[in-house]
């Protein structure tokens, strides 16, 4: 928990009201984003994203599995987030579980789309190897190493970067099999398939402090929030998911206003992130 004196609280709120935050940013400016890819060699894809003092790692692992009976033409994607106690002593033991679940659920909601798969960043149909029999199961793990607010945006960016970095081995299906038998598959060591990550949305969290809202809040600013709305938006400007945090009620018109602001901000964020990812990929290949 952030312990702030009344004066500090006043300073933060006053700064936000005057569009000049304590670290010199305007209300709708992000901190600088730093992306590094391929940080976990054992994973199929991984990335580390730093947003100011917030530091998160995302990794993607793929395992061959069986599609569920209800959706034989789709692979499965699961997202888990862990909050390491290194980020804050209160995450010790089971302390981080509540926040971890909240973040996992929010990310699943924002990145995986509806039940039918519409609006998903990664098309689950592209994970199928043999319909109804073999598919890839993607496990996306997020780890919060250092926390200074705005974890959700950072995690979503890290997942986007990790997925761009992901290569799934090419799979050859040996022979046609009949009935319920599982077909034999060969996993190639050399050929890898890349995902099309252009459709993966970014998450923009707007934190309401006083009468104004800000993007990319630090943990001091988050402690002053009355509510926050996280909106995931893709390249096309469509909303792919939304969650609200914080107890205070919001007027419906304000929410619609927030959505249009978030759309505007997301364009800049997407461009910035894409160029950062490209730069990180380039330096990863060099080394």
């Amino acid at each position, binding site marked *: 928990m952030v312990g702030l004196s009344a004066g500090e609280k006043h300073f933060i709120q006053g700064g936000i009201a005057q569009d000049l935050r304590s670290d010199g940013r305007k209300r709708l400016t992000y901190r600088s984003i730093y992306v590094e890819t391929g940080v976990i060699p054992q994973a199929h894809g991984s990335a580390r994203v730093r947003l100011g003092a917030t530091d998160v*790692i995302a990794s993607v692992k793929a395992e061959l599995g069986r599609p569920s009976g209800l959706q034989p033409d789709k692979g499965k994607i699961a997202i888990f987030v*862990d909050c390491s106690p*290194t980020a804050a002593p209160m995450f010790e033991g089971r302390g981080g579980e509540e926040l971890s679940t909240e973040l996992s659920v929010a990310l699943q909601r924002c990145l995986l789309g509806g039940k039918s798969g519409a609006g998903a960043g990664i098309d689950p149909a592209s994970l199928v190897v043999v319909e109804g029999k073999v598919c890839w199961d993607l496990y996306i793990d997020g780890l919060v190493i250092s926390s200074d607010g705005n974890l959700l945006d950072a995690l979503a960016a890290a997942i986007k970067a990790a997925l761009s970095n992901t290569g799934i081995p090419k799979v050859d299906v040996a022979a046609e099999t009949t009935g319920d038998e599982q077909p034999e598959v060969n996993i190639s060591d050399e050929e890898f398939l890349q995902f099309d990550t252009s459709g993966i949305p970014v998450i923009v969290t707007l934190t309401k402090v006083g009468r104004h809202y800000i993007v990319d809040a630090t943990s001091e600013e988050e402690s002053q929030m009355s509510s926050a709305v996280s909106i995931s938006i893709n390249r096309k400007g469509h909303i792919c998911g939304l969650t609200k945090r914080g107890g205070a009620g919001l007027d419906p018109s304000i929410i619609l206003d927030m959505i249009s602001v978030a759309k505007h901000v997301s364009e800049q964020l997407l461009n910035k992130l894409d160029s950062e990812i490209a730069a990180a990929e380039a330096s990863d290949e060099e080394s």
Partner: protein
Amino acid sequence: MEYVSPEGLLLDGRRPMEMRQLRAEIGTVAKADGSAVFEMGNTKVIAAVYGPREVQNRSQQMSDQALVRCEYSMANFSTGDRMRKPKGDRRSTEISLVIRQTMEACILTHLMPRSQIDIFVQVLQADVGTRSACINAASLALADAGIPMRDIVTSCSAGYLNSTPLLDLNYVEDSAGGADVTVGILPKLDKVTLLQMDAKLPLDIFENVMGLAIEGCKAVANYIREILLENTKQLEYRRGL
């Protein structure tokens, strides 16, 4: 299987007396009082230190010394197979205990009565020797946090395979099932604070292997000292000294 080639080289091209590559970085977790990343070959851990601070649980407060606590956790993606283990399984409890006891031995706890020091270690990649890597990372993080210590604890392991003592085993070598000796020392005082071995070894060979591990610890100590010195220079530079 041959783990040591006739030329005396190991499978990954190291010599038996050669350590895996070391890399360390100080101050990765901005919010912590002290933090460090430590890599030994493919093993990579982050340690963060919070404290000395007020004791959270009053009943654990000690009036004559500081309370040292440690939690070890592994990231889901740290091992080859993705795992999702609940926190606080037996292995991590045991390692937490080992790290806590080792660090407690070198911290001058009597200087900070009625306070608490938390050490959190997070394994990002687990190869072999997470224990050693964790202790080294924790040492660096404690030093970064400016916590008074008798000396820097460093740790390293050594093994015995194909009748050759090997320094700092890697995954393939470790899974071959030979003996594995993990040693932690206080290099300046030349004292051993941690010694763990599974499997059995003849006594004369054990001495050899342990000697090798201690040499490894000293090498780690030199490296850690360099890193700390470098870090201090940076700090001085930033303060304009």
